[in-house]
Structure formats: structure tokens, C-alpha cells
């Protein structure tokens, strides 16, 4: 990049800011943000979370990579987020390119644009950002001075729908992967960029851990299914592996979490207490693709919380993971932190999904000083039968016992999360949710001796995801989902005695169909994404921006030449033989094991958790050369005695 192309665009942007909503989100300058000297760095990353700042800023993945990269000598990382349509229009009118919020340099001036996709609904936002950056939308049209566009995050485990738009994808944990990519880019630049862009991508692909869609051809059968996916040049692997960080204590990031000035969706100090999950819930992509379980030690957690709170001033700590109550030392962690912060008005939260009495003890501990407002559980399925299908092993009696304990301990509200449209589901499975909620209220009134208790049922449509046993399953159509939810609503509202104590929240089935199309789509779906973007589609995760009709109209037109349609991608059941679009991306899971687990689901057979039963051969550990890493370490979390020894403010040194 010529030097002048890397100048800050802030002066031009500044003139536009008085005319847009919440301008603070575009100015950067957050506490703990980093701006490194441009000229003294030779590898420069622009990291993007392709959604609004208020959603993107708290994202742990971006925050971790931002810090890991900026700690390296000669490497800089800056952040960029999707701009709202009001600013987008002004930027187009005044020719202001997509910029990073740190130094307001144009994204096009960076070596890499790394996008983190937690959800597929960010794809159109990526196209907006590319276009605003002046980077060609399709990888094949890019030149030597365009950044390498790299996708990561959970959605990248099937990058095929965006294969035309990205140069490469990295699947799995990013901490070590970004450093390896940095090393390769640096070497290539030092050598004078031999072989251009293609050579760089080839060097990345050769590692086996970076997927370059352009190096693979997809061949189709006459019926529209995929015949095979093959490398189109020698030296690139048939399958690309995910990355796994093995010792979380060696990666205590973020150390200095960003503290935004603007209001964001999560305003707390988050600590990831373990990564991975082997509960084996069959609908859960996150649980499947992040195996094995790797715990952060109790002492490592204690240190991160302490340092993080000091660095940020947050008043809440979130202990994150896919099922936080499952940490082998969670009891000691909760008690230790509650002791430590007893006098500090620091709130502790745990995304609590497990339905058992132990969870209530934990919740009690974490709310020692505070309010006991609401507890959340996720039975996911309404009937005993469907819970066996999805392998969410909780009986209705367990649930009732658990909520009885909760109401008995002073909790006033219980939230229950469910899904609609699970494989083999009938109306009856969903209608049983109403019965369950009724029993919860009955029991709650009995235990608490009060009518002033509530139960909220929250339910959304199930979307089958790649790399799960349900990857072959038919998705329920939007119409059937809506019908089923309407029946459930009527049943709950019709209950004269308990209905008023039961809240009902649901999401209609339409966005789920678009998510389903993008989740299990192949390269042909890229034409749909592009058409939607060109038709004005943005911010698909936002109800007020999402347009189902636009997606369906664009899909009809864009898919017609291929002889497939939205139903083909969503409501169609796949067979064992079918080549799935993501088969060449290796999450470590053995496809035959996934298929057997799918058959077990249909037979209503449950599978245990391999943390406390023998291995059931999902394939991840041998394939990825990894192993389960869990405690207990036997160590205790002590209160920090140094605290308050000398008052810091005004009284310190």
C-alpha cells in the first residue's frame, strides 16, 4: 500500500458524525484500546465483527485476537464494525471508506481483513464492508494491494456460502492460528511478495490449517447434490483441519478487556472458564465443534477476574463457557469469588443451563448480596421423548424438583428455553411445554406460598447445523413452525388458573429458514447472498432490517439456474451417501460417528458425557491429537488479602 492510502480518514468522517445516530460508536478511544505506530509494523490486521458496534465490541473472540496480535512486535491489529445505514449512506455520498475505529485508517490499507462470524446472518454485512472498503466483492477480482479476506468464528465451519467472497477461512481456536498466519505473511512480504497473492494463499493453504476455497473445485451431480470437492492444484490438503488451543492457562486473554463508551449488549468482565463441551446435545453446533473440554484452572480464573476488574472497573463478572456449571471446580470458584467480592458490589453471573439442585446452590452463592430475580434453565424440548432425541438428559421430575428448590430459596421467576422444529417432533411434544410450565407454577405457588411468581417460556425455531448429528435432518418449514407455536400459545393463554403467571416469548419461523439456508448452504448460495446485498439487505440479525421476502425473492432467482431452491437446502432430509458441502473441513468429528448418533437420536437413545464415562469415539481427540483437560486441581481461590490494606484513592503512593 502506498503510504498516503493509509492516512486516517477521521477528518472526513468527523464532518459526518453530527448527522448520525450514536456517533460515539465510530470514534474509538475506548479504555484499553491500542493504537500502534503504523510504520513500525510490517503485518497489519483489521479485525471485523460484522455487526453493529454495540454487538461487536463485547465479542470475546475479536477482543482476544486484538490483544494477542497487538502484543507482538511489528504487528498491529485494529478493529472495524458494521456501520449503520445512516452512516453508510453518508460515507457513500462523501467517499469515505470503511475505517477502523482505532486509528481510522481505511480497511483496504491493511494486510488482512479478518472477519469473525458467530452467525451466518453477518454475511451481507461483510459485503457492505468490502464494498465500502473499495475491495472487490469476489476473491477472484482482487489484486496484490487488496487485503487477504479471512473468515473465522463458528459459522466459518461451513464457509461454502461465502466461498466466492473470502480468500480463506480458519476454523477453530484463533489464538495460535493468527500468529502462524502472521509469520507466513511476514516472510512473504520480506521476500518481496513473490508470486503475488496466489503464492501467499498457497503458503497458507499448505499448512493444512487454512482453507482457501479458490484451491478447491466443487463438482455436482445432475440432481443438484455435490459429487465431490477436489483440490485443483497439488500441495493443498484434501481436508483442512480446525485449530485447538490446548492449555487455556497459557492464554489468559483478554487481559485488558476493552471498555466501551457507547452502550453495548454485554457490559461485564467476561472470563472463559472452559472451552468445549461434551454433554452431547445433538442440536448444538458449538458443543460439537469445540471439543475436547479444556478447563482454565481455578487459580487462572481467579487471576483473570482480579486483573480484569482492575483494568476495567466493570461491576459484573461473567463466567463464560458452553455449560459453566460443569467446570470441575465450579463450587469453589463461585464461593471463592463471592467471598472475595462480598463488599465490592460486584455482581457474578453464570450462564446456567443445567437443570439440577446443584445449580441452585451455585446461583444462591453468586447472588449472596443481591436480588434473586430470575433463574434460567434450558430443557430445550417439551416432552421426555424429544429430550431423548436431542440428548438433553433431564427428566420432568428433575426439573420440577429443581424449580421447587429455586422458588423455596427466594427466586421469583424461572425462565425456560425451548426449541421448536426438532427432528421427529410432533405438535404433542411442543404442547407438553405448556404442561411443564403449569406444573412449574403449581409447584412454585405451593413452595413459596405466594401467587407472585412467574415462569417465562422462551422458544425459537431449531436450525440444523453442519458438524452435528442433525446435519442430515429436515428443517421444519416456517409455516409449520408458526402453526405449532400458535397452538402452544393458545394452550398457555387458555389456561385460566395458571396462564397469567406464564409468559410466552417466541420467534417466528421465517428468520430460521434464512439461517438454515446459509448454515447448510453450498457455494451456489453465494449468489443469493450477493443478490440480497445488492437489493439493500443489511443487518439480517435485526428484526427491523431483516426481510424474509427479499431473501426468498433473491433465492428464487439466484438458485433457479442450478435447479435447486430454498426447500432443497432447508426442509430436505439428507442421506448417508450425500457429500455435504462442509465434508472437507475437518472438525475432528468422525462422520460415521455423527451418523450413528443421528440414528441413535431417531431411536431415542441417549449418549453419556465422556468426561465421566468411557470415550464413545466421536473421533476428535485422536484426529486432532488432543485430550480432555479437566480438574480438579484441588487448589482454592483465596480472597485477595492485599485489598483495602491501603486505600488507593488519594491515600496511596
Amino acid at each position, binding site marked *: 500500500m502506498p503510504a498516503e492510502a493509509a492516512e486516517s480518514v*477521521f*477528518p472526513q468522517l*468527523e*464532518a459526518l*458524525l*453530527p*448527522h448520525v445516530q*450514536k*456517533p*460515539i460508536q*465510530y*470514534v*474509538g*478511544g*475506548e*479504555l484499553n484500546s491500542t493504537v500502534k505506530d503504523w510504520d513500525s509494523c510490517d503485518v497489519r490486521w483489521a479485525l471485523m465483527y460484522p455487526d453493529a458496534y454495540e454487538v461487536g465490541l463485547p465479542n470475546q473472540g475479536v477482543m482476544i485476537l486484538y490483544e494477542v496480535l497487538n502484543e507482538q512486535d511489528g504487528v498491529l491489529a485494529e478493529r472495524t464494525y458494521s456501520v449503520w445505514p445512516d452512516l453508510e449512506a453518508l460515507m457513500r455520498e462523501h467517499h469515505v471508506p470503511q475505517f477502523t475505529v482505532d486509528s481510522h485508517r481505511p480497511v483496504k490499507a491493511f494486510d488482512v481483513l479478518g472477519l469473525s462470524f458467530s452467525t451466518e446472518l453477518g454475511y451481507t454485512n461483510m459485503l457492505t464492508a468490502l464494498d465500502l472498503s473499495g475491495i472487490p466483492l469476489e476473491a477472484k477480482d482482487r489484486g496484490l494491494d487488496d487485503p487477504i479476506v479471512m473468515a473465522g468464528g463458528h459459522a466459518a465451519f461451513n464457509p461454502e456460502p461465502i466461498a466466492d467472497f473470502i480468500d480463506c477461512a480458519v476454523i477453530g481456536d484463533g489464538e495460535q492460528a493468527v500468529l502462524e498466519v502472521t509469520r507466513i505473511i511476514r516472510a512473504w512480504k520480506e521476500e518481496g511478495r513473490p508470486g503475488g497473492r496466489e503464492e501467499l494463499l498457497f503458503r497458507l493453504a499448505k499448512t493444512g490449517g487454512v482453507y482457501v476455497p479458490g484451491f478447491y473445485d466443487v463438482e455436482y451431480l445432475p440432481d443438484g447434490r455435490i459429487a465431490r470437492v477436489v483440490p485443483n492444484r497439488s500441495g493443498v490438503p484434501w481436508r483442512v483441519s480446525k485449530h485447538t488451543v490446548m492449555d487455556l492457562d497459557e492464554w489468559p486473554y483478554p487481559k485488558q478487556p476493552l*471498555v466501551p*463508551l*457507547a*452502550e453495548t449488549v454485554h*457490559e461485564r468482565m467476561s472470563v472463559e472458564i472452559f472451552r468445549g463441551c461434551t454433554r452431547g446435545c445433538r442440536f448444538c453446533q458449538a458443543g460439537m465443534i469445540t471439543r475436547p473440554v479444556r478447563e482454565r484452572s481455578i487459580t487462572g480464573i481467579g487471576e483473570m477476574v482480579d486483573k480484569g*476488574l*482492575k*483494568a*476495567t*472497573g*466493570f*461491576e459484573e463478572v461473567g463466567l463464560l463457557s458452553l455449560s459453566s456449571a460443569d467446570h470441575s471446580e465450579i463450587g469453589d470458584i463461585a464461593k471463592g469469588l463471592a467471598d472475595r467480592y462480598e463488599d465490592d*458490589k460486584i455482581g457474578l453471573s453464570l450462564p446456567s443451563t443445567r437443570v439440577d439442585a446443584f445449580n441452585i446452590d451455585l446461583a444462591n452463592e453468586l447472588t449472596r448480596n443481591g*436480588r434473586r430475580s430470575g433463574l434460567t434453565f434450558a430443557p430445550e424440548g417439551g416432552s421426555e421423548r424429544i429430550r431423548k432425541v436431542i440428548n438433553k438428559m433431564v427428566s420432568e421430575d428433575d426439573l420440577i424438583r429443581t424449580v421447587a428448590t429455586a422458588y423455596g430459596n427466594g427466586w421469583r421467576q424461572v425462565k425456560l428455553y425451548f426449541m421448536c422444529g426438532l427432528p421427529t417432533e410432533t405438535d404433542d411434544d411442543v404442547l407438553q411445554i405448556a404442561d411443564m410450565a403449569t406444573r412449574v407454577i403449581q409447584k412454585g405457588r405451593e413452595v413459596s406460598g405466594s401467587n407472585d411468581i412467574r415462569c417465562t417460556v422462551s422458544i425459537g425455531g431449531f436450525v440444523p447445523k453442519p458438524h452435528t448429528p442433525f446435519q442430515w435432518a429436515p428443517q421444519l418449514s416456517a409455516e409449520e413452525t408458526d402453526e405449532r407455536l400458535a397452538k402452544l400459545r393458545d394452550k398457555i393463554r387458555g389456561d385460566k388458573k395458571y396462564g397469567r403467571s406464564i409468559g410466552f416469548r417466541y420467534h417466528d419461523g421465517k428468520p430460521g429458514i434464512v439461517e438454515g439456508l446459509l448454515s447448510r448452504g453450498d457455494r451456489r448460495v453465494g449468489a443469493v447472498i450477493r443478490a440480497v446485498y445488492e437489493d439493500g439487505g443489511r443487518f439480517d440479525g435485526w428484526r427491523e432490517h431483516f426481510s424474509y421476502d427479499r431473501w426468498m425473492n433473491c433465492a428464487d432467482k439466484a438458485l433457479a439456474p442450478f435447479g435447486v431452491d430454498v426447500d432443497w437446502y432447508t426442509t430436505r432430509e439428507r442421506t448417508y451417501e450425500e457429500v455435504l458441502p462442509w465434508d472437507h473441513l475437518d472438525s475432528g468429528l468422525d462422520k460415521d460417528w455423527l451418523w450413528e448418533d443421528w440414528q441413535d437420536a431417531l431411536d431415542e437413545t441417549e449418549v453419556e458425557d465422556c468426561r465421566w464415562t468411557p470415550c464413545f469415539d466421536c473421533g476428535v481427540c485422536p484426529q486432532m491429537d488432543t485430550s480432555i483437560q479437566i480438574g480438579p486441581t484441588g487448589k482454592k481461590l483465596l480472597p485477595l488479602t492485599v485489598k483495602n490494606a*491501603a*486505600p*488507593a*484513592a*488519594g*491515600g*496511596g*503512593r
Partner: protein
Amino acid sequence: MQRIRLRYTKRGRLRFTSHRDFQRAFERALRRAEVPMAYSAGFTPHPKVSYANAAPTGTGSEAEYLEIALTEPRDPERLRALLDESLPAGLDIVEAVEARTSGLADRLTASVWELRLDGVAPEDARRAVDAFNAAETVEVQRRTKNGVRTFDARSAVVGLESAKTHSSQADRPSDHPCAILRLVVRHVTPAVRPDDVLSGLRAVADLAPPVPAAVTRLAQGLFDEETGTVTDPLAPDREAAATVPHPAAATAAATAPA
């Protein structure tokens, strides 16, 4: 309970901080700096902070004020330095005095503003200012939540002049024509903001800056009718502190580790 009054700024790009944003950032800074805050009683206790008269989002300021209540006395200057360190650069805590008098808010009756009009020739600005000053009333409109409201922007203005040189705090480079206005405006209800005065200049003289004006509050305080100046609202507290040292502060200073 000790009360401390602080003057703070919104500088550079952080002038886009809204008042709500500032409140959150400030309360976090209080926790980072481990300030022994007094909390309100009630179900959800809040640290006791009184904010006075915040500048609108998008305008810079050298003179914002707030007051905090502490459960243990602290040296104001050390407290200031700690809090300043705990906030992002641009939101700077620049002054701290212990409250010795009542009614800080009552002493904030007027503001001095600087309006930088990039791309406007100083002569044009001067003509518009003269027209504005000569007018008896200048009706302007502002869009509010309840629709468009019309009001007079002239009577609250006690001083408006086109500055010859600028003592600018603003952060934009200027090699083009640029006019600088200095505005003294009383705090009245409904408030007359710099934006309203700019609308007034447009109304009386068709002054239309090509880019948004960079507006900075330079001072806030009691308006002295005789001299026509705005006085330092913390001065009475400072004077009282100089004559009678507060017993609590003296103790704190004596026990603080060196």
C-alpha cells in the same frame, strides 16, 4: 461525608460521548480508582454523583462539572489524578476541590462557547454576528421529541462576537478560511444552545457553514452582570478551603502513607 466537586472535559473525538455514556464511564472510573463512594439507599444502590448541566453530544467542553460524595475523606488533588488516569484520554478530570459551599448548580448560570466555522470567511461571520446582535428577537426552530418548537434565541445571548485570533481547544487543522465565534449565553428555560444561535445566524444573515461547526464550551459559571463575564464556579470553595482547612482532610493527609 466528604463532597468533592470536579471539573472535567470532553475533548477531541470523545466529544461525541453522550451524557449517559459519560456517566457509565465515570462510574467505572470510580471503581477502578477504588474511590470510597457513598451509595444511595434502596434496592439498587447507586454511587452518589450529581451532574450539572451537561454539554450536548458532539460538542466539546473544557468546563463540565459534577460533585461526588465520599464515605472517607480524600485529598482532592490525588483523587483527581487517579480518576483522570482511570478515564480514556479526552475525558479528562482537570480540577477538584472539596465542597465548602452549597449550590454549585446555582452558580452555573451562563456558559462561554467557542464556535469554529470551517470554510466560513471571517468577514461573513462578522456581518452575521452584527445582524444577530442588532436584532431584538431571533426566532429559531428546533426539532424535539414532541415535534418542531419555535422560540427566541436572541434574548439569552449576552455576548456574541467574531474572534480575531483563536485560542482554540478544537482539534481540526485549519488551512482554509475559518471564522471563530465567541458566545456567552445564559442558561434559561428552554435552553438556548450553540446550535440554536447558529440557526439564528442563518435566519438573520443566511450564514450557512459548509461543514458542521466545531463547538466547545470554554467556561461555565455565574454571570457577572456588571463585568459581563462568567466567573469560576469553584472559586468560592477554593477560597473557603484556603482560609479554614477541613479537619477531615487534614487527618487524611496526616495518615496517608508517603
